């Protein structure tokens, strides 16, 4: 169906339209009505787990072509990340697994460690050169899917966070976009007043990563098996964030919840002048505040100029029955033209080097600004991933650490002591 309906959407589309493209991506493919997981061809349907926000038409088109090429029916299952994880862990326990799984963070490595993800080495050896893997992928995006020298996942999306600001507010206050922590604090102070906060920090712990990276902090040092080193730099980075909220009061207290949209909403409502975020907030901002003139700054410079990466990979479960098909699906979904179409449609950023120079990546100034930050992006969880404990340490313990400092204003050293004790138990267990 996507063939008859060439992708003509533009960023100018209202948010509703984009969201529709994503949510409506319900293909209704699997034919014979409710409860029909088998395809007419007689074989099992080819099952793909995907993020509910990533159901782009560009992918529908790929799926159509894939179905035609192989005579299979694709069962495209869309979940929120936590639900997807619940689902895939149940699948691993039962042994009945999907054929391809999209995954955030370093799940691909985590599942490589546990033996649930399939090494893609044979496929890469065979036709990596033809598809441009790994040469056309930013090196970091290969690294975050590699375990003990073997590739387990192919990066599908690759994004990063940086400083996003309300141009008019900064202009009116005579403030130039900050590039260091000190400048940021000074600007935030200048911009705070009345109903408006200069900055709005996110409640989600992953938004602490850029600060730590900028202060050259590593989450885990595999050699010494120490967490959050160098410790003094880590303390400084946490204290800086806490001070923004509690001492200088240039950011509202972040509200713990399950979504990340708080700061974006404050920015859109004109109640925050700057936020740290990724390209995923561009659409909601354009949708809810079309008149807002947005600026996207280069990543802040602390000890280093760096920011944290985000994005999704796709991996093949070890027990997937038709790995050749799975591999072909990965190739198609990460093809350059698919990446470009997805960017054009949804503003998503991509891991290929050749994508970064494509017109889709360079024509929109905001996307271009984010794309320019991609080479500066690093994965904070990467060192921890091979321990297989990254889920527990980051989702539970690091979350508690971040929120107790930034939300509850717990003294940094006290919060770190609690974290250390719990993390030691986790890494030992």
């Amino acid at each position, binding site marked *: 169906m996507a063939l008859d309906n060439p992708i003509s959407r533009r960023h100018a589309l209202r948010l509703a339209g984009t969201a529709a493209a994503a949510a409506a991506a319900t293909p209704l493919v699997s034919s014979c009505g409710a409860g029909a997981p088998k395809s007419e061809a007689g074989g099992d349907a080819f099952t793909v787990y995907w993020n509910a926000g990533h159901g782009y038409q560009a992918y529908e088109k790929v799926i159509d072509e894939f179905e035609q090429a192989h005579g299979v029916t694709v069962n495209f299952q869309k979940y929120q990340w936590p639900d997807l994880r619940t689902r895939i862990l149940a699948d691993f326990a039962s042994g009945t697994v999907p054929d391809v799984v999209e995954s955030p963070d370093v799940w691909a490595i985590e599942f490589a460690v546990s033996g649930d993800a399939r090494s893609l080495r044979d496929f890469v050896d065979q036709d990596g050169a033809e598809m441009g893997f790994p040469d056309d992928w930013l090196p970091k995006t290969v690294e975050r899917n590699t375990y003990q020298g073997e590739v387990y996942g192919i990066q599908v999306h690759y994004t990063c966070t940086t400083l996003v600001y309300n141009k008019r507010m900064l202009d009116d206050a005579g403030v130039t976009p900050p590039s260091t922590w000190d400048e940021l604090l000074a600007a935030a102070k200048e911009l705070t007043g009345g109903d408006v906060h200069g900055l709005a920090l996110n409640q989600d712990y992953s938004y602490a990563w850029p600060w730590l990276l900028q202060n050259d902090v590593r989450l885990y040092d595999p050699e010494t098996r120490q967490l959050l080193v160098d410790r003094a730099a880590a303390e400084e980075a946490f204290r800086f964030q806490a001070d923004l909220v509690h001492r200088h009061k240039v950011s509202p207290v972040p*509200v713990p919840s399950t979504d990340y949209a708080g700061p974006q909403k404050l920015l859109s409502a004109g109640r925050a002048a700057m936020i740290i975020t990724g390209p995923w907030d561009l659409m909601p901002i354009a949708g809810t505040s079309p008149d807002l003139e947005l600026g996207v700054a280069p990543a802040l410079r602390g000890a280093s100029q760096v920011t944290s990466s985000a994005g999704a990979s796709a991996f093949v479960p070890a027990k997937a029955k038709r790995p050749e098909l799975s591999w072909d699906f990965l190739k198609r979904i990460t093809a350059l033209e698919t990446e470009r179409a997805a960017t054009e449609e949804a503003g998503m950023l991509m891991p290929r080097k050749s994508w970064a120079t494509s017109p889709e990546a360079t024509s929109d100034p905001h996307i271009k600004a984010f794309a320019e930050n991609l080479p500066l992006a690093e994965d904070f969880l990467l060192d921890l991933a091979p321990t297989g404990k990254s889920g527990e340490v980051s989702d539970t313990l690091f979350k*508690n650490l971040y929120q107790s400092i930034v939300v509850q204003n717990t003294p940094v050293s006290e919060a770190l002591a609690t974290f250390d004790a719990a993390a030691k138990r986790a890494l030992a*267990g």
Partner: protein
Amino acid sequence: MANRPRRRRDGLSRRYTRTAYLMLLPAILFFAVFTYLPIGNLLTTSAHSGPQADVFAGLDNYSRAVSDPAVRHSFVITVIFALVTTVGAIVLGLALAMLLDKPLRGRVVFRALLLVPYLTSVAIVGLLWRNILDPGLGILNRLLTALDLPPQQWLITHPLETIIGVMLWQHVGYAMVLFLAGLQGIPDVYYEAATVDGAGPARRFRHVTLPLLMPTTLFVSIISVITGLQAFGQAYIITDGGPANASDLYVFHVFNVAFEARDFGYSSALSFLLVVVILAFTVVQLRYGRRNEVQH
């Protein structure tokens, strides 16, 4: 099953036993397969560790549970959560039921309105309240500010109290309906007799209403404690257990041990401990209830 009964007395008892077991057969099979088999599995898993739960660990998971400060914290706040929501549901539910037990116009409507939150899903209730209570973005503070009242920050300052409040919001109507039914089941003669004996409203409440409501109270209390100890959605949807772990309810914690940390061995041990605790709470309540029960 449709055998004609034999009238011979001596055969009766055995025949009833057979009938009883026949009628219970589907239930016995059902619970064996769908509850006790999984519990067996749970116990086995709890003696293992690793992402596949395939490394034998003996009782390690249990000893770890006992010394885990995060588990202790979750357990304590969950017991508080269960007790406060239970007492709250009983007190508020009974108070509302007593009002609605009076001959007021429109009480059928009130009864329906007060029960409405119970008919909605926990997830929806959670999303809704998160949307209402958010300090910077919620509708409540907008209204408070418009009325020149100070805005609240409960999700940050009082997360546990907040999810207790939401839980009560949803469950008080349920308790109320049960109490209302219980009240209507108390024959008027008891009140009349008490009045003749010169008892005022307070004494009638203490000496007639409360004792005769005991079976209902006990039922509400047992169900409510179990629901409270198993509460999950409130933390999952509204606060994500935060800030930090301030509202990290036990089942939410265990769920994360299972599906975030992927430690099914440990989560199984923690689950089994919860089952033991819930059974203990239930047995204690049943004991206490039996002792205080008054027959009509």
